[in-house]
């Protein structure tokens, strides 16, 4: 055997980490309670809505992406990500996770688009220079694929900053003419933008669950972002828990200095919190922390064109 020389460690009661049961009712209830917290809705209402059959079909298109939004989806619910995939949605096309490849994968996509009634998720920027040849999927450009997949969708979720505004691919000098969904598909209806690098998966899933619960999209701001996730400024009283130090004029000046160890304000290290609207501070990443909480400035990854507008990252921002 290649198990450890000291023998197996008992699983139950390992520290404070709960034991998920991937196929149990607990996974489903865990999913519902996480969503209830994200959307401030009763658990029972969510449980009734998301358990309805048939499951909501989802077609996930990846273009100029890094797959972090997919990974974020897999971190979105604790416990119960298996419940999302088995009980709540039907992930009918997703290249990173689906069983078939090649022609069979293409057939799965065509079938899902023909059936209709699906949510289209787009992850990644869409290159438009040179007729889109910088992203080719089975001989089709990403631009063509995104237009085809969004055309018949109930609604489209642009997940992550790349799908929203081109993200890093569109950063100067934008070598491939990359843009987001709204830039690539003119006049697209029912678009929801979920920026972030990546999107926090909780916000992605909560948007879908809101639709299942209300059969409408959640309230959106003028940039088509759900207000439940993008309605609050990070650098504000009651938001960032370092704000009290900002009020007291206490700043981090070097990595590891007294202020850094005591959690003082990161403004002078380049923090973009004052210009950033997000919910990282209330819906912590991995239900554990967020960059400012761990000691690093916010880079403002939900801010439009932040790769150009917020850099250099470590220089104090104008007017900040």
């Amino acid at each position, binding site marked *: 055997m290649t198990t450890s020389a000291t023998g197996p460690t008992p699983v139950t009661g390992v520290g404070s980490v709960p034991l998920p049961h991937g196929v149990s009712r607990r996974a489903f209830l865990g999913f519902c309670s996480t969503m209830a917290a994200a959307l401030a809705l009763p658990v029972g209402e969510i449980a009734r809505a998301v358990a309805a059959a048939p499951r909501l079909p989802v077609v996930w298109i990846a273009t100029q992406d890094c797959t972090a939004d997919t990974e974020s989806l897999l971190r979105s619910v604790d416990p119960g990500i298996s419940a999302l995939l088995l009980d709540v949605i039907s992930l009918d096309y997703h290249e990173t996770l689906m069983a078939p490849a090649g022609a069979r994968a293409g057939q799965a996509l065509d079938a899902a688009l023909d059936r209709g009634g699906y949510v289209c998720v787009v992850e990644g920027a869409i290159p438009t220079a040179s*007729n889109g040849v910088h992203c080719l999927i089975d001989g089709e450009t990403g631009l063509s694929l995104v237009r085809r997949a969004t055309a018949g969708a109930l609604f489209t979720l642009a997940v992550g900053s790349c799908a929203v505004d081109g993200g890093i*691919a569109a950063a100067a000098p934008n070598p491939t003419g990359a843009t987001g969904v709204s830039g690539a598909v003119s006049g697209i209806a029912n678009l929801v933008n979920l920026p972030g690098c990546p999107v926090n998966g909780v916000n992605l899933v909560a948007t879908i669950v809101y639709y299942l619960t209300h059969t409408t999209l959640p309230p959106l701001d003028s940039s088509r972002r759900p207000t439940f996730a993008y309605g609050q400024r990070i650098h504000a009283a009651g938001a960032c828990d370092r704000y009290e130090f900002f009020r007291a004029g206490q700043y981090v000046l070097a990595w590891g200095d007294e202020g850094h160890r005591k959690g003082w304000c990161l403004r002078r290290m380049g923090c973009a919190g004052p210009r950033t609207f997000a919910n990282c501070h209330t819906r912590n990443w*991995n239900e554990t922390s967020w960059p400012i909480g761990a000691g690093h400035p916010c*880079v403002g990854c939900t801010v439009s064109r932040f790769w150009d507008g917020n850099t250099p990252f470590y220089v104090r921002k104008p007017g900040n």
Partner: protein
Amino acid sequence: MKIVVDPVTRIEGHLRIETQVDAGAVTDAWSTSPMFRGIENVLVNRDPRDAWVFTQRICGVCTTVSALASVRAVENALGITIPDNARIIRNLMEAAQYVHDHVVHLYHLHGPDWIDLTAALTADPAAASSLQRSLSAWPNNSTEYFAAVKAKLQAFVDSGQLGLFAGGYWGHPAYDLSPEASLVLMAHYLEALDWQREFVKIHAILGGKNPHPQTYVVGGMATAVDPTSSRAVNPTSVSRMKAIAATIKTFVDQVYVPDLLLLARSYPAWTSIGRGVGNLLCVGDFPERDGTRLFPSGVIRNRSLGSVETLDQSRITEDITRSWYTGATPLHPADGVTQVAYTGPTPPFEALDTSGRYSYGKAPRYGGAVMEVGPLARMAVAYAANVTRARQLVDGALGTLGLGTDALFSTVGRMLTRALETQWLAERISPWLDELSANIAAGNLTIADTTKWQPSSWPATATGYGTTEAPRGALGHWVRISDQKIANYQIVIPSTWNGSPRDVAGNRGAWEQALLGVPVHDAEQPLEILRVVHSFDPCMACAVHVLDAEGAEVTEVTVVP
């Protein structure tokens, strides 16, 4: 006949594989990276301290690794030595990444190549229970448990909405797992789905988030440590990470490694299929306090585990003879001059002209030779270098399976070495946490060398490189800094090595070679091709990049009809 697999699914990013299949076996293969962003070009003229934030976005599956290589490259250029706490924190984050990446790879990316969902539906839960009890002490082992998993899967299938599993190659004759083994592994597919998010909470504690943790800085880490502060890494957060480390070790020892051995026993033919090029390259990683590295660097040629050649990074070149770029070739990455020039067919198209240029991927070579990188390279180099723990792990597993070391050079060999290095790293997380605890307890709270933080302290020009062993293999960043800005940035990535197209000499890339001779039972269901390619765990967003040296604009793409 030509068999085209596009998209190759269950990988990171986009990949197209074309194969020539005659008499039921692959006789030739072409690997195409069909997506390109130009991140290195985006980096030019930016603050070198920002580079890691950009390069981390090369990939969100192997998040962290291109952040680490980037800060190392800039630190190397500026002559910065990071403090011990930063070394430990970086090791912890990278180790957590390995565990997460490799577990997800086995179950969710590679698993459906070996596990037949429909076979699991015919399993006897009592027999599955007996099988699980024979594998390990993992507590989810009762007849009732497996009956519940089976019922859950059956209900899922009966719903008529097969979702991710629709169109899978179920019932393919190449599936050799028993129904009970299939049910056990499907149960672990679902369990791993829920466990994976626990493993990377180490990133959330030390890095603020995952994917794309955000506490790297040139000079160390922005993760404050202080035993008296609730806003820094303190004994409470170390305890939490110790608990996660125990969870990781338990899952790896009781689920991942036993399952991998079960697969290896069930697919004996695949210990000699997909053997590949037999040349291995490892840059080494996980620096220990004594200056050694857990994974030593080195080069192995012709499947010989008798000796390790010393790695010389100056011998690495990239060749673009068969890639959609123009310019001189081959060149060392530090001197790379590359201009993108797509010359493939106008989309939409059915076929590529594989006799010419056929990929956005370049062809890295070592002294002109094709190299495979990744878990096989790491474990084989450590084994050949007589690293004790590597010897124990490899000899133990091969002994259990009744195989010789030659079996490492195979589809199963890549899977096995991936599992064994995960086991090795899972063992190291807790001791590294102890080192961090001891430093904190002793009052060592330094997490960065900040003496060269201000650009005004830098020389007018500086060059450097940084390497890491990413989960998929050797990763190198080369940077040139001029007047406080990035003048040149070049990245050579694991899947660029493994998924390369041909070079000027016509040599096939690593997985192009591994595909030669692979049996293909059914052209409509290229399961065997997926098995070989997936054994490398392709990461294609990583694999494609371009940089024009000296910061010139990338030229306009030429589309040739």
